């Protein structure tokens, strides 16, 4: 301490920070970028040239086959071949496109399928709107209630009492969601608050606020129920379902089921109770060590054996069950990976402030783990979406099944490549969009906790 002089008797040095300078001029601009990334050295330049040459070869071949020599208008494959034997026959794709999308769903009823897609998009869209409250409820209703509406639109026919109720609930929920969204966007107040203030309960105690909402819901339900009674759609059996539509049905149910089931299985695997743990481990390991195609075959041939006499389980239902179980097992491992990445201190802090097991998991652990898992979860979804094409092997006419069927049509016999290229493009668009969205989500959610 002695070598530091107390500066009382002399002038204090005033410390002035240097002003910040702009960074050195960047090597930006197109030329700079090219020079830095493509032509920085002799070998790099060589690789660039070779790379561009390969790209050119592939692109020109594709262009030659797919555009220059392609046939866009023809009624049979023969006509195509007569016009241009070495070009693509896109005419076949145009003729069959509806079949690739809807399978053998009757032409006149295809609007039902398209309409449910539009409804789903409209149901989910508000989740991305600003200023809209209760987004979790909207998203959950879209996942839990929408399937009943879609299911009825797809199947049609008479509704039993359960479907009658669920379809009414679904229509009501959709209408209420949008009423809520519009209210939020226009007045800035949600549906619940609006009902409460209109009914004059706003001044009363918080606990009574649910009564006008329940009453409103009940009245709405009765109205919808009355309106749709007597309205039916033509019944269309699942054996007519096919194409991209079927792929989306199977993978959509698989995806919606996989995440919650995977979370339950992953938690079960870490449970302190041995029985639960063993059951979960056995289930996960069993399904993960068997190829999906085997699970699918087992489902279609063995489920019927377990079912009581007379109960017919159709092929589609078996396939959906198989895909769900399979994806749940994989998802469980993804979730487990995410859970392992969470610091032990988070569990301890949650326990120390008095949270029990379920609140701890739901509020502290899962939100963090899910955020970490987004890339892997979306990866599994993409995998599932693609794997669904395997159902064509057990005789379901998904998009690949339809393509195979078309290639056996007498008029179009041998038409393989063009439909397959189309299917590849459709799958690419779906998968690429999912993966891009997951990147975006990752970035957006990661903003909060930069360390």
């Amino acid at each position, binding site marked *: 301490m002695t070598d530091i002089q107390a500066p009382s008797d002399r002038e204090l040095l005033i410390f002035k920070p240097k002003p910040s300078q702009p960074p050195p001029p960047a090597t930006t601009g197109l030329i700079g970028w090219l020079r830095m990334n493509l032509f920085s050295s002799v070998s790099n330049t060589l690789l660039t040239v070779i790379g561009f040459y390969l790209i050119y070869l592939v692109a020109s071949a594709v262009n030659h086959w797919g555009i220059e020599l392609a046939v866009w208008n023809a009624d049979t494959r023969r006509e195509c071949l007569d016009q241009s034997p070495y070009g693509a026959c896109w005419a076949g794709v145009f003729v069959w496109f509806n079949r690739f999308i809807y399978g053998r769903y009757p032409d006149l009823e295809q609007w039902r399928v398209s309409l449910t897609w539009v409804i789903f998009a409209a149901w989910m869209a508000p989740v991305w709107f600003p200023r809209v409250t209760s987004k979790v409820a909207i998203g959950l209703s879209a996942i839990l209630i929408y399937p009943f509406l879609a299911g009825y639109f797809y199947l049609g026919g008479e509704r039993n009492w359960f479907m009658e109720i669920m379809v009414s609930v679904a229509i009501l929920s959709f209408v209420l969601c949008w009423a809520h969204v519009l209210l939020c966007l226009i007045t800035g107040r949600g549906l619940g608050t609006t009902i409460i203030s209109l009914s004059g309960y706003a001044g009363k105690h918080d606990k009574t606020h649910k009564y006008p909402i329940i009453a409103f819901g009940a009245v709405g339900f009765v109205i919808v129920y009355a309106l749709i009674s007597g309205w039916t759609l033509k019944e269309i059996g699942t054996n007519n379902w096919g194409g991209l539509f079927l792929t989306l049905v199977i993978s959509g149910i698989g995806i919606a089921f996989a995440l919650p089931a995977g979370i339950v299985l992953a938690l079960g695997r870490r449970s302190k109770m041995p029985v639960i743990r063993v059951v979960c481990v056995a289930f996960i390991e069993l399904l993960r060590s068997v190829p999906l195609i085997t699970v699918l075959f087992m489902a279609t041939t063995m489920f019927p054996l377990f079912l009581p006499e007379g109960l017919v389980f159709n092929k589609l239902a078996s396939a959906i069950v198989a895909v769900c179980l399979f994806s749940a097992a994989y998802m469980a491992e993804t979730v487990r990976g995410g859970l392992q990445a969470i610091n032990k*201190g988070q569990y301890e*802090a949650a326990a*120390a*402030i*008095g949270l029990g097991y379920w*609140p701890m998991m739901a*509020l502290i652990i899962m939100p963090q783990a899910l955020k970490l898992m987004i890339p892997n979860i979306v990866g599994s979804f993409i995998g599932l979406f693609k794997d669904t094409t395997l159902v064509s092997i057990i005789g379901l006419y998904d998009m690949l099944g339809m393509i195979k069927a078309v290639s056996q049509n007498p008029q179009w016999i041998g038409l393989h490549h063009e439909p397959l290229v189309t299917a590849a493009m459709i799958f690419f668009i779906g998968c690429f969009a999912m993966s891009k969205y997951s990147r975006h989500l990752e970035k957006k959610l990661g903003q*909060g906790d930069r360390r």
Partner: protein
Amino acid sequence: MSVEEQETTEHISSALSDEVVIELNSVNKWFGEFHVLKDIDLSIYKGERIVICGPSGSGKSTLIRCINRLEEHQRGDIIVNGVTMGNDVKNIDAIRRNVGMVFQQFNLFPHLTVLENCTLAPIWVRSMPKAEAEERAMSLLERVKIPEQADKYPGQLSGGQQQRVAIARSLAMDPQIMLFDEPTSALDPEMISEVLDVMVGLAESGMTMLVVTHEMGFAKRVADRVIFMDFGEIVEQNTPEEFFNNPKSDRTQLFLSQILAH
């Protein structure tokens, strides 16, 4: 640095009552074969401030973590506020609601804002209405002197600020006892005093505190009793004055000479 600074200040007198809030009767704990806590006997009175020190690995953390059941002891009794710690989940919950804990690594919830960190437990454990919980959390954040950070995420704060949020988060449950496990050990030197200041303020308000720390200035200023642990045992306990000026055992003397040497 903080040692010199605080040596000059008065010891904060406490209003000790003779009501025992934590009682440990020959508590023993093993990690596998390893005997970490050996026959610990300890009674802590309401409003008492205890500083626990000792070499690394001596079982200090394990001891205080047994008090809110983050670790399970195998033999002996731990009685907190008249509730005996056992396997009964109800008892554990009752104890945890009364005992707050601050960790060396802060352990804030990174996906929640500072305010949400502080309102989570009151809302979910005590079923407090959100508005009330937020109001209380804001007054606690004022008490730890960071109300302006309420809407930030923990990752955007400095270590000292994070630790103060952690203290506010524990206080939000209105605990009667606070446990601190080396609250300043993970902090950069210039941030230690801001956290210690908050803890001194807490001591002034009459909180029962168990603090594992090597900040001897804090011990001298605040503690009613200093406990020295080694090899899983309580080697010596005394008032800070006696403890620092007349250590009874050679282990204590050696330890004090090591940490006060520089």
